[in-house]
């Protein structure tokens, strides 16, 4: 009671009809901010939003869909202009998105899509993961050369984006193998790397026990690729086994420069962050924009790394 009355006094002390220069707030809740990829997207969202006169409210659900749902409620309470979402779970986040829809707050997704039924997502910006997977396949062919070899794939089936990467990779490898009798590239195992160092390490260590003639690893992101490297280094086979990663995070890029990883198809989180805000601005102005924008991945190898000013 006392709180209410105190706040009442405080509230009414302010004059009515005061105008502020701020146009509104754009909210961002990614999978997790511990992954630099989402932090870079967030930083570019903040910068682009500021350029357009908007504040940013960036929260970290830490991969927990319950926390992310709660954050949606908090966003609705603070009356944000738009919400940018990377779903922690593409189905369970549905009711929270619906709540925002009911309030008329537009919801955009970046990187990963929301697959719940009956939700309204007004725009998406993502990486063309299938094309990125094809790049990874081409890099693998280059890494193994004419002799071909045995490949381990570290996947993460829970994320649709990672499933697409593996599909693109396999398409190129199959095309390469078609009509060949020698020098085929054979996928001998597909294990769960969970997109993380720990599982990437464990799965690779297990695969090395089962296949002592392994020639290469394709990991669907940098943390699992680096976990794979640890296992390979432990087995003292780092000179024979080539690794292709994905993402192009800073430690992944450094590993490419150091020769630990052969190459990465890299995503462009900076472009994604800017693009999503530009789409929001177009939405708010009632203009046309690309509802499902895909940003192509590009290949990052040792030569690119040697010229990268961000690396030591």
């Amino acid at each position, binding site marked *: 009671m006392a709180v209410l009355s105190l706040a009442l006094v405080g509230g009414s002390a302010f004059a009515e009809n005061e105008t502020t220069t701020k146009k509104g707030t754009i909210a961002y809740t990614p999978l997790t901010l511990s992954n630099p990829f989402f932090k870079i997207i967030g930083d570019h969202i903040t910068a682009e939003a500021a350029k357009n006169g908007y504040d940013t409210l*960036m929260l970290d659900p830490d991969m927990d869909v319950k926390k992310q749902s709660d954050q949606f409620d908090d966003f609705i309470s603070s009356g944000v202009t738009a919400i940018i979402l990377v779903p922690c779970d593409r189905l369970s986040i549905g*009711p929270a998105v619906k709540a925002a829809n009911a309030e008329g707050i537009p919801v955009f997704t970046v990187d990963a899509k929301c697959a719940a039924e009956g939700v309204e997502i007004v725009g998406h910006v993502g990486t063309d993961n299938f094309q990125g997977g094809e790049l990874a396949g081409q890099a693998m062919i280059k890494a193994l050369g004419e002799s071909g070899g045995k490949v381990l794939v570290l996947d993460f089936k829970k994320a649709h984006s990672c499933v697409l990467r593996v599909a693109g990779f396999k398409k190129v490898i199959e095309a390469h193998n078609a009509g060949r009798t020698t020098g085929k590239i054979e996928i001998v195992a597909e294990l769960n790397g969970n997109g993380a160092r720990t599982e990437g390490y464990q799965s690779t260590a297990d695969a090395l026990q089962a296949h002592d003639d392994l020639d290469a690893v394709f990991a669907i992101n940098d943390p699992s690729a680096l976990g794979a490297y640890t296992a390979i280094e432990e087995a003292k086979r780092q000179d024979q086994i080539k690794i292709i990663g994905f993402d192009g995070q800073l430690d992944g890029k450094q590993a490419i420069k150091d020769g630990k990883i052969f190459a990465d198809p890299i995503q462009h989180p900076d472009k994604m962050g800017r693009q999503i805000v530009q789409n929001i601005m177009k939405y708010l102005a009632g203009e046309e924009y690309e509802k499902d924008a895909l940003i192509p991945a590009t290949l990052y190898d040792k030569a690119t790394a040697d010229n990268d000013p961000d690396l030591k």
Partner: protein
Amino acid sequence: MKNIDYAKLFPDYGTLLVLLLLCIGFSAVTLEEQSPTTANAAKRLAKRMANELAPGSNVIVLTRQGGDGASFAAALKENLAKVGLTVAQTVVGQPADARKALVKQGETENVLAGIATDKHMANFCNANLTKISETHPSLAKAKVYQPQSYHWPNFLKKDNVLNIMKQISVVAIIAIGMTMIIITAGIDLSVGSLIAFSGVITALAIRGLGGDDPALGHLWLGSLAGVLICGLVGLFTGGLVTLFGIPAFIATLGIMFSARGLAFIFAESEPIVVQNEAFGWLGRGRDILGLPNSVILMLILFAIAHVLMTRTSIGRYIYAVGGNPEAARLSGVPVKWVLVFVYTLTGLLAGLGGVMEASLHVTGDPKAGNLVELQVIAAVVVGGTSLAGGQGKILGTLIGVIIIGVIRNGMNLTGVEAHMQSVVYGAVILIAVLVDRLKAKGIRLRKH
């Protein structure tokens, strides 16, 4: 002059004071301009427009879809007609719809005098009207009207207060059982895993009973299954603690790992969607006076638990067991049964929490409830229950849960960075324990 025992006041009202200060603080920092969308605001806006515009002038109404958008637009339309203005169009929609409406209006070449809007569409018009009227000159003179704004903290908006209560309801309900366990000087680490276990069992039972199109009865039966099975797990824990004398910490640690693993195995590692939106009733529904159902349930359970702990013999037994189990046994308290009771009750409540959590997302998720046991324990400790046993109050726990919820919500509203949120949580728990120690030492301050 009368002596007041401040040390006695402090533990009783100390946590309430902390809560009060938090609320004041968060209200101050979330003070924002609010724009009303009530029928009254529409009436005032129409009057203001009638005063400034010539009678019979052309106006249009633009509001954003969702929330009160449709009702506000209808109220504006009605009031504008009443004050003698001509409403050419009423559009409730997204910015693209507003643009279309303005262009359409511009093409009629009837001079537009005013646009009645809510806050969102006013922003749209202020940003885009000049540009549009370059090609459609009949819009050039149109003035944009929006309701007079006022200042009020986002934190104290009714929706946000309900939002906080809804968010804490699962932790709060489990904290009832946890308070009793901690009063008996025990602990239960398994409750977070039981949330997932119960949610998965519930979703699977519903699917098993009703297939792809479960009826209402199946939802109830499935939920009951989830709650009861967790009750059985609690009974089992109670057995481990009393019959075999396994320390509660170890017994419940074992249950914690096993229940989590089983949840993943039963669910085949995938969240199980319940194919009937009615399942969201408990977690998302608002049936009585606009209060969330989960909050009503929470309040009822707290009222029952308060009576149980203060007015019944089982309540006295629970305190007695925690205070001194040997003395309790000698004075005829059935110590083992009391322990079995509190662990079973906590199992049931964790099961209920799991059903609520699953209901919120209309999904049984094996990942749910991760680390919730620590939030529950933190809330109980912050609420003034001593880990040494024998002391504690159910209502104190309610305040503890609210404090945790308010901090979380307040930091989210103000956009405090995640790692800093962790630091603050930790600090609050430490302060609470410090208060607990001071209380135990019985520091007394007296007024001269």
